[in-house]
């Protein structure tokens, strides 16, 4: 079996990569250029709002290299989890960028699109039929909660991408996808080992993060052979080592030996990482245990209200010494004011310098800081109500006559005018559940389009 080379330019589409690293990758004559564009790391807002968490200019810059070099050299390009969260508006956003690039670079090609949106009625029916399993103790959502999610997606496996590649498209633009599959779908289709291809995808989807020194913004090459794969850095300042590659198996995962994905769980129990003389690392021994039935991971964010915040600080040691009590008293006073006005809201204080970073997980016993930052967070059913409660909380705290107060002009230093900031709609993860999908392709609608005019 001839080696199958996959070029991974960057850890997240839009994070960038040095041109020299990408061109060095092109000299290797890769069989595939692929990138993962997504993550749930930045929280529930981006899926709920239909917006990308990466910047348009950055995404266009990265895609210009990938698409132009891919099309001109007849190398397939696969993009997974388009637009970050991979719902329809994210995919459309990415498609527009690709169309602009085609126009500007005078390219024309066939592009397959795989959408990851799942009909809410399908999800509700599956919950009723006992075909949905919660992950990590999340409660089972009610039909109302499912319906309140603006978008529901599922992480696709290799199958929908392979269905498009079989049609001979030049580019695949996929909605939400399991991270490794944009790297593994094509080699698996060509007969390479499923476990090794998936494991290689799992590592190179993070590009040079698994090299040392690590970077999420530099290109690497994964080379797949019949019974092993090789990781190769493309920037001379980096290399893969046994430890850097092995340590990456830990990153963001709950169990480094068992990595569950659509259709199966990778087993790393017998994996060996061996450094080669060339500064590359050879990986062997990965196995995969298929899951029956095939399951896909659903993701959905539902709106929980509107947020307004205010940022301030204090340098007063008397106030800082009893800050937690003062904030409790202020909250009580605000609650009292609101109870008569029929305004419903939740108020949170994030106190930087005390427990702003760890919140209720903070149990340490530390001396008082000389300054403290106070972030007032208000959540309410409407933006106007959030504004009102934030304003009342801010002004109450500003002039609150706490015990022992001697600085009577105002308790807070505001860095900005205006002091209050509208944060817009706020979301929470509601769906993070597995759904049975006996046919792994069926839930994912697909179309093939011509980009940049007639071919």
């Amino acid at each position, binding site marked *: 079996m001839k080696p199958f080379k996959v070029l991974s330019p960057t850890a997240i589409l839009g994070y960038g990569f040095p041109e020299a690293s990408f061109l060095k990758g092109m000299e290797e004559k890769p069989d595939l250029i692929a990138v993962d564009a997504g993550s*749930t*790391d*930045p*929280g*529930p*807002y981006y899926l709920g709002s239909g917006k990308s968490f990466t910047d348009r200019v950055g995404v266009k810059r990265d895609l210009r290299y990938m698409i132009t070099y891919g099309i001109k050299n007849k190398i397939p390009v696969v993009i997974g989890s388009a637009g970050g969260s991979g719902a329809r508006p994210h995919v459309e956003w990415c498609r527009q960028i690709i169309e602009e690039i085609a126009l500007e670079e005078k390219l024309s090609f066939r592009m397959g699109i795989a959408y990851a949106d799942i009909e809410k009625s399908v999800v509700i029916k599956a919950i009723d039929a006992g075909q949905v399993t919660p*992950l*990590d*103790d*999340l409660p089972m959502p009610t039909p109302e909660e499912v319906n309140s999610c603006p978008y529901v997606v599922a992480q696709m496996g290799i199958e929908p991408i392979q269905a498009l590649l079989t049609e001979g498209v030049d580019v695949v633009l996929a909605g939400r996808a399991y991270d490794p599959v944009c790297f593994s779908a094509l080699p698996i289709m060509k007969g390479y080992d499923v476990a090794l291809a998936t494991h290689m995808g799992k590592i190179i989807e993070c590009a040079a993060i698994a090299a040392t020194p690590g970077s999420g913004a530099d290109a690497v090459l994964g080379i797949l052979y019949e019974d092993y794969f090789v990781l190769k850095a493309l920037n001379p300042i980096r290399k893969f080592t*046994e*430890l850097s590659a*092995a*340590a990456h*198996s*830990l*990153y*963001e*995962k*709950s*169990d*480094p*030996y068992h990595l569950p994905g659509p259709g199966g769980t990778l087993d*790393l129990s017998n*994996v*060996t*990482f061996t450094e080669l003389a060339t500064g590359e690392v050879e990986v062997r021994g990965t196995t995969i245990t298929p899951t029956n039935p095939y399951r896909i991971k659903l993701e959905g964010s539902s709106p*929980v*209200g509107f*947020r307004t915040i205010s940022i301030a600080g204090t340098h007063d040691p008397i106030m800082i010494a009893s800050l937690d009590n003062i904030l409790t008293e202020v909250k009580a006073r605000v609650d009292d004011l609101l109870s008569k006005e029929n305004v419903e809201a*939740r108020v*949170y204080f*994030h106190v930087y310098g005390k*427990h*702003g*970073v*760890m*919140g*209720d*997980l903070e*149990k*340490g016993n530390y001396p008082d800081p000389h300054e403290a930052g106070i972030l007032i*967070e208000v*959540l309410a059913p409407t933006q106007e109500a959030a504004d009102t409660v934030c304003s009342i909380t801010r002004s109450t705290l500003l002039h609150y006559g706490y015990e022992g107060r001697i600085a009577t002009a105002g308790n807070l230093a505001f860095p900005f005018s205006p002091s209050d900031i509208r944060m817009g709609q*706020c*979301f*929470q*993860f509601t769906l*993070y559940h597995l759904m049975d999908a006996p046919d792994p392709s069926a839930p994912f609608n697909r179309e093939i389009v011509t980009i940049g005019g007639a071919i």
Partner: protein
Amino acid sequence: MKNLREIARVIRSKNSSPMKLTLDIIFKDRPTFEEVKKKNLISKAVIAKAYQLPESQIEKVIYFDPALAVKIGMNRLTRSGSPGDTDVYGAQQHAPLLGIELDV
């Protein structure tokens, strides 16, 4: 007794899902890792004590030989990015580990 900071080269936290935190401790050398593993010096009880949480909140402790590492799974108090959350990525919840002293 040695502080974990002296014998580990990486001590970090991160979300492993919107509901879970994962803590990684990667040791500097294999003999120290093997000793920690053999004596089971990093356990649910040790982590629970460092965070002053009931042991039931610590989901798992896994020794990962290829990377000289111990991985710990624990619950988040708030779903990532939900109202009142303090750390959307979960990347700054590692500090209690920095105070752990081990008999190596």
